[in-house]
């Protein structure tokens, strides 16, 4: 997605962090002790991300007419990318069967309920659109990813072998 709109940044972080939080919470109880330990640590940090983006969402949504309109537009625009958060792939299914991973579909209800609660506080309407974009899990991304990667790689590409 294009970078630069604060509404997009906050909505995207909230939708994603909330999902990560529920997945990591379940992962704390997985059958791999080291993975469970890392998840326990990540839960602490992800809670901050949820709080940070969630409070901004409420502030913007329940703010001025313009901030409300813009953050609602961001939610409408980004909604179609949330479906894939709950899709696993074949490798993930095998790990879930062995007790080492969390089925992403299993956190959908908790995610949805929490999102609705925060959206209510933010006076935002959760979109009802059912068509979801797919393909990210198979490596098919929007054109924006190429530009983002180029931006992130420019220093290393311009100065091959540089160390600091």
């Amino acid at each position, binding site marked *: 997605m294009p970078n630069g709109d604060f509404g997009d940044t906050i909505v995207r972080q909230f939708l994603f962090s909330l999902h990560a939080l529920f997945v990591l919470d379940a992962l704390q109880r997985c059958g791999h002790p080291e993975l469970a*330990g890392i998840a326990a640590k990540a839960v602490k940090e992800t809670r901050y991300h949820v709080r940070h983006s969630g409070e901004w969402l409420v502030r913007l949504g329940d703010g001025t007419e313009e901030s409300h309109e813009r953050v609602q537009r961001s939610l409408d625009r980004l909604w179609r990318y949330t479906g894939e958060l709950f899709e696993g792939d074949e490798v993930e299914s095998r790990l879930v069967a062995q007790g080492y991973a969390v089925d992403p579909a299993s956190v959908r209800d908790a995610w949805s309920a929490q999102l609705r609660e925060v959206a209510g506080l933010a006076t935002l309407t959760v979109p009802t659109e059912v068509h979801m974009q797919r393909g990210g899990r198979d490596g098919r991304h929007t054109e924006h990813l190429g530009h983002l990667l180029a931006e992130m790689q420019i220093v290393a590409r311009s100065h091959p072998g540089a160390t600091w």
Partner: protein
Amino acid sequence: MVARSAPSPADVWEILEEVRDPEVPVLSVVELGIVRDIAIEGDHVTVQITPTYSGCPAMHEIERTVVGALASRGLVAEVRTVFSPAWTTDWMSDVAKEKLRAYGIAPPGPTTEQPLVPLMRRAAPVPCPFCGSRETETRSEFGSTACKSLQVCNACRQPFEHFKAI
């Protein structure tokens, strides 16, 4: 300490007490609570360290400094990173917290059991490390480092950072 003889655990802890956190130089890595364990075999020391935050960019620098400090006493050090149990600010001693406050960083309070999604359940205001007032407010959940938030004191008008309880 005599080089090349097996050090006692107390010797090693004493050396580690000299290793400062690069982001919060008023605290040693021991006071910060990130040194979890040490093991000594001859002149070989293994130090277990846990990161404050999983993405903490200071970890490599800390590892380098720990190895350097022990090497300067003739010891061969190896640093192992452990993630579990996860670091908590409760491992910081009261002395360390007071050092933080005197340095101008509001120390973390005790951690409390919180709901998984902590939205809109803000903790009590953070006392200003300069004037002690509780008339403070959070400006940003993230400060100069991920482990600190940005606060401002409405009594003495001084902005300051708060080491978050985690």
